[in-house]
């Protein structure tokens, strides 16, 4: 019995080992790989996949150009599962592959922060299409950049809009107790407190829950004139839907976590009078935007609807490739080192992306990051109703 088992185990070990071993090709000296890290599984996989597909589109469009320079471009998609442990482990893995020169990622700040230490140690440039947590760029890492606005910009922007345009005086804040939701809600609350707005309550809900009637009853009791929600579309959509069922027709406002076609699907008709801030302008009506949608769906099929994060992923990749190109030119058309690529990306000053213009400051934040405010009517995306520039 014991020996039998030993044999089975040996065979099993050998088979998996060889199967795995095959995947490790060296790739030639002129191969340059760019990785993406985003959740491809788990509850926010719609957003994670949008990042990946956007990045993929940008990379494939540029393959020709880099071939002329003598390099083959390749995308290496990683699934961070929205889990810091997996994110860090993946970061180690992509650091080990010397042909990987940059990474687009992550979706979750909770994953991005620990993974960014690994990138920094290995001089891999990271451009984030989504992370808004303030801390990410506060430690002065050379490799860490983002094209989106920070929470301490998005929060006040949202507050400004809420008080100026929606005339909100009594605000009820709800957050989903995730790193993203908490970051957003806290920054909103901070400004609101400074500006001496009336915060009626600061409540939390649980990600994955379906019944928010409890907390909504409290909203009914407190009679606010705005609900601010820090969280993603999954819970946000249900919250809006159930609020409307309770006859709460006050405006609900959220961050870019609402910026998904699923928001409308989940919330249904109740999505009207829902507002969200986003760093991407509404380009669906511009010719560039329509062009992008056409390209995107031609490539990935009609089933994959274009999300804002598709643009963000596309632009993040664009910035990386811009930096890569610069560093190749600088290096006399030879393959640049990771450090050269990293510095070249940080040096990007006015890259015109499809959704935003990008230029990094000393910390790696996007100088041109703007916050746009949208209102849902009955379809995704919502109508753009405001733009807030950095002060």
């Amino acid at each position, binding site marked *: 019995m014991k020996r039998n088992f030993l044999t089975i185990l040996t065979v099993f070990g050998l088979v998996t080992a060889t199967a795995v071993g095959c995947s490790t090709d060296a790739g030639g000296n002129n191969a340059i790989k760019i990785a993406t890290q985003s959740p491809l599984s788990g509850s926010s996989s719609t957003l994670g996949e949008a990042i990946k597909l956007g990045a993929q589109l940008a990379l494939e469009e540029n393959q020709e150009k880099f071939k002329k320079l003598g390099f083959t471009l390749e995308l290496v998609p990683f699934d961070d599962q929205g889990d810091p442990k997996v994110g860090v482990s993946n970061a180690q893995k992509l650091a080990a592959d010397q042909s990987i020169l940059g990474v687009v990622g992550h979706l979750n700040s909770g994953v991005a922060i620990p993974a960014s230490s690994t990138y920094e140690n290995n001089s891999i440039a990271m451009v984030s299409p989504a992370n808004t947590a303030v801390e990410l760029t506060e430690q002065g890492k050379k490799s860490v950049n983002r094209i989106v606005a920070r929470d301490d910009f998005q929060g006040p922007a949202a507050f400004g809009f809420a008080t100026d345009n929606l005339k909100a005086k009594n605000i009820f804040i709800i957050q989903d107790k995730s790193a993203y939701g908490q970051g957003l809600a806290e920054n909103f609350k901070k400004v609101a407190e400074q500006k001496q707005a009336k915060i009626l*309550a600061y409540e*939390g809900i649980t990600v994955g829950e379906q019944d928010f009637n*409890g907390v909504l009853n409290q909203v009914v009791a407190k009679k606010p004139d705005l609900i601010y929600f820090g969280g993603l579309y999954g819970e946000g959509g249900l919250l809006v839907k159930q609020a409307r069922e309770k006859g709460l027709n006050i405006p609900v406002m959220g961050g870019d976590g609402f910026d998904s076609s*699923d928001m409308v699907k989940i919330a249904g008709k109740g999505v009207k009078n829902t507002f969200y801030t986003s760093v991407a302008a509404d380009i669906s009506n511009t010719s560039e935007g329509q062009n992008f949608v056409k390209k995107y769906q031609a490539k990935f099929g009609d089933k994959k609807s274009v999300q804002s994060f598709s643009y963000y992923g596309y632009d993040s990749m664009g910035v990386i490739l811009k930096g890569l190109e610069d560093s190749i030119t600088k290096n006399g058309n030879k393959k640049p080192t990771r450090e050269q690529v990293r510095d070249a990306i940080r040096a990007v000053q006015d890259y015109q992306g499809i959704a935003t213009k990008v230029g990094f400051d000393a910390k790696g934040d996007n100088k041109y990051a703007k916050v746009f405010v949208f209102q849902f009517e009955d379809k995704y995306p919502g109508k753009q109703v405001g733009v807030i520039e950095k002060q």
Partner: protein
Amino acid sequence: MQEILSTLPQVLLDGLTLGAIYAVVALGYTMVYGILELINFAHGEIFMAGAFIGTALLFTFVDIGLALNWLTLILVLLLASLLTGVLGVGIERIAYRPLRKAPKLIPLISAVGISFILQDLVRFIAEYKTGNYIVTGQTVFENKIAIPAFSIGGYDVHASAIKSNTLVVIGIAVLIMIVLDIFVNRTKWGIAMRAVAQDRDTAALMGINVNKVIALTFFIGSAIGGATGVLYAQQYATINPFIGFILGLKAFTAAVLGGIGNIRGAMFGGLLIGLLEVFAAANLGILTGGALGAEYKDVFAFIILILVLIFKPAGLFGQAVKEKV
């Protein structure tokens, strides 16, 4: 105080809806535990499977041009409970029956395994079909019934509203409970079930086909779970493959609270947990001045579970059983 009272009718109503769902799911736990002394961890997933099957059926109906009304809903309920019932029997046959004589930990582990398999299978299918495992389905009843604001003894009570679907949920849940209660207490099969639950060996000696009775128990428990899943999908419209696990835990808490193995106890426990949960979510923040909020409501459910298990393990309606020495 005013704030709490003003929303109380709505809180009670929401709590009752959630509680009715917990209660019906708890029935499945209590029946299986009563008969096998096994926590069927997979029961929450059977509930979830029911929600997905129901949603899929409704989509199919819409595709073939059937109108959505109470008749289609009943058809969906019946079909979904039949399918989940079969699923339950299949699970029992594959994962529990071979282990009936094994040490107690082993079937529990198998149950956790089945629950994981179901979660991932449903996720895979949903994702493969729709590209996303969060699915928003069709709802049959959309309209609302408004209850106007009124005031009692100087306290203003806010206007509240009931979805007509809520009434359907509560109505069907109550119906299921009554029918089950009659079935278990009045029919031949019900008596056989209780006999097997009391003493499997003696029941076998009395000519009862124990395997058949256990399979029947699983069928009924799972069918009820599946039907509840359909109702749940109707109530909340959006479902995902992971709704079963935590809901299952809370339903189990309800079953324990009422005294596990006790059908009426499970109903009572379910309603109580549902009410407490919604009340906690609505009022914890108000009561503690914002120090603790709605986010602690699950902690509440678990603390109740732990307290009951520690201080009254037989539950509110159960009888203590002592090990024979």
